[in-house]
């Protein structure tokens, strides 16, 4: 196999470009990290300490940001007085549940779309994708009416269903691409070995693991970050973290400390999920098993 390294030669222009890139990245890093950092630090600060700011332009007094007594009272308040453990659980169940349902149904649908030829397949596939084209707001009112009819408003099941409606076409679309890349011969070999069509489908699932991993992340992220569905379909009994955090902003009192703590509680699990699943996002699992 030929080397994949691209041979490059340094020119004055490319050196200048490198410097520009580094400067840009430094700014970008600050831009991205700073809000997260402030949120994290503020969540451990007393309200008074949180609003202590150095005078404008006085960079020597920047240490004032770190001059505080760490306190966990906002987290305590969040979980013991405001019932965030329930909201966290609602978020986990709604996001995880819709991800699992979408991945199970989506992989089967994607497999059949990838493998079987049937009449109207192209139209069907386009129709599935097109359901993703409408903005969420457009379907919210009819969806609300339907869900109310089935008594699904304010239930976790209702939320899972609502997220699945939006995640499933996405799952099918992503996973079909991955199934298309798996050679037919592997599942044919499996069927000749003695498996049913369904067992053959399961036999090639490990080969689309990168796709399933990628999809799981995107699907959980969509549900986890969602505000619209959560505040309308989930209102009442199945409040998730974003609307619950929103409720901390009250007319007479904005609970900044709790808001920051809620922000940390919402962000940290998603970061760990990203780290955990990164391994599966690396493609190239089929390399060497079949001859291309």
């Amino acid at each position, binding site marked *: 196999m030929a080397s994949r390294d691209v041979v490059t030669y340094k020119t004055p222009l490319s050196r200048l470009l490198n410097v520009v890139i580094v400067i840009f990245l430094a700014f970008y890093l600050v831009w991205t990290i700073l809000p997260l950092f402030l949120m994290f630090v503020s969540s451990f600060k007393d309200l008074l300490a949180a609003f202590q700011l150095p005078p404008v332009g006085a960079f020597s007094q920047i240490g004032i940001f770190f001059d505080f007594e760490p306190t966990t009272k906002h987290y305590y308040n969040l979980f013991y007085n405001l019932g965030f453990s329930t909201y966290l659980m609602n978020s986990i169940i709604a996001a995880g549940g819709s991800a699992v349902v979408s991945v199970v149904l989506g992989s089967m649908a994607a497999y059949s779309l990838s493998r079987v030829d049937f009449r109207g397949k192209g139209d069907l596939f386009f129709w599935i994708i097109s359901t993703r084209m409408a903005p969420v707001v457009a379907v919210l009112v009819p969806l609300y009416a339907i869900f109310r009819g089935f008594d699904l408003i304010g239930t976790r099941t209702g939320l899972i269903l609502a997220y699945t409606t939006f995640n499933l076409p996405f799952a099918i679309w992503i996973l079909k691409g991955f199934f298309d890349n798996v*050679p037919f*011969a*592997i599942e*044919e*070999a*499996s*069927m*000749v*070995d*003695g*498996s*049913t069509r369904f*067992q053959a489908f399961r*036999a090639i699932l*490990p*080969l689309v693991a990168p796709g399933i991993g990628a999809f799981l992340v995107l699907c959980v992220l969509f549900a986890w970050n969602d505000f619209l569905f959560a505040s309308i379909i989930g209102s009442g009994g199945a409040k998730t973290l974003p609307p619950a955090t929103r409720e901390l902003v009250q007319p007479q009192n904005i609970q900044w400390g709790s808001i920051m703590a809620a922000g940390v509680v919402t962000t940290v699990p998603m970061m760990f999920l990203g780290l955990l699943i990164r391994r599966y996002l690396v493609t190239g*699992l*089929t*390399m*060497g*098993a*079949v*001859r*291309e």
Partner: protein
Amino acid sequence: MASVTITNVWKYYGKTVAVKDLNIHCEDGEFVSVLGPSGCGKSSTLRMLAGLEHISAGDIHFGDMRVNELEPKDRDIAMVFENYALYPHKTVYENMANPLRLRGSSEDLIEKRIAFAAEMLEIEHLLQRKPMELSGGQKQRTAIGRAIVREPKLFLFDEPIAHLDAKLRARMRGELKLMQRRLGTTMIYVTHDQLEAMSMADRIAVMHNGVLQQLGTPQEIYNHPVNEWVAGFVGEPPMNFFDCELVEEGGRFVLVHPAFRQMVSEAQSALLRGALRGTSVRMGIRPDQISIGGKSTVESVAGTIKVTEPLGGDTLVNVDLKNAQLLVKTHPDFSGAMGETCHLTFDTGRWHFFASDNGIAYF
């Protein structure tokens, strides 16, 4: 083990016909090779036998059992794919164990069978490796191992050694033949390489454009091709063909070509007399059925040496006739320079005549 009978089988893909009215019977324990160029329908045939393609029309029987509607898993066959089709995330051992596991065999039996197959294929030291860490030859052995552990009724091999390098391919030919003889399992082996078919098979089915051309032993195929296409496809280097006229002289035929006149023997004339339509024929003669020399004789044909290709064991000589070319295979110490005149003698007992319109052999 079982015999295989393919009766009036057709295969359509949409409106394209891939296999036309195919009839092949394969005895129990026989090694049948399906030979043809790419797109001739040989792989479709194999996939219909495996149950991976629907049969558009006709019947396939294993023994007395009609298998048209049986799923692959119920046909008790083992197939080796052209691209190996190993499970990339499983070790060699697990790859080979898979068909046994799916049938619920005990671990003891699995271990025993794999040990036997691995020893036969000389891959014992690779059992814990994954396919990615294997060479082409090793992958192919693993794929064969996966096929033989189950002791199926029928082996289906789809160009299993086409992607190996020439040396390994030559060795695998012998090994596969030996393996099939030792196991005694019926084998259908699809290939486009006539050398593989000739060297391994008990009988060869030659296919072209979805139509079975000839089914016979390698000797029959080589020595008595039924038509011009088979004659030209089988044999390396390929047969020489000439458009000729037949003239009757004194009760015998004379073959007339702008570059030569050759007498046709009495026996051959008798064969022609009943069947001949018109006066033109195609004459085919293999490169090793022509001898080349410096001296002219009564029957010899004069030509000009165009180029010589020494192959070590033989030498191929391209000769220009008046308005035709031909290839001669001769001994390695033949010394003829480019542009020299040479004299060719045809082994007229072994040449073939084909009808010029439809290519069917007179003899």
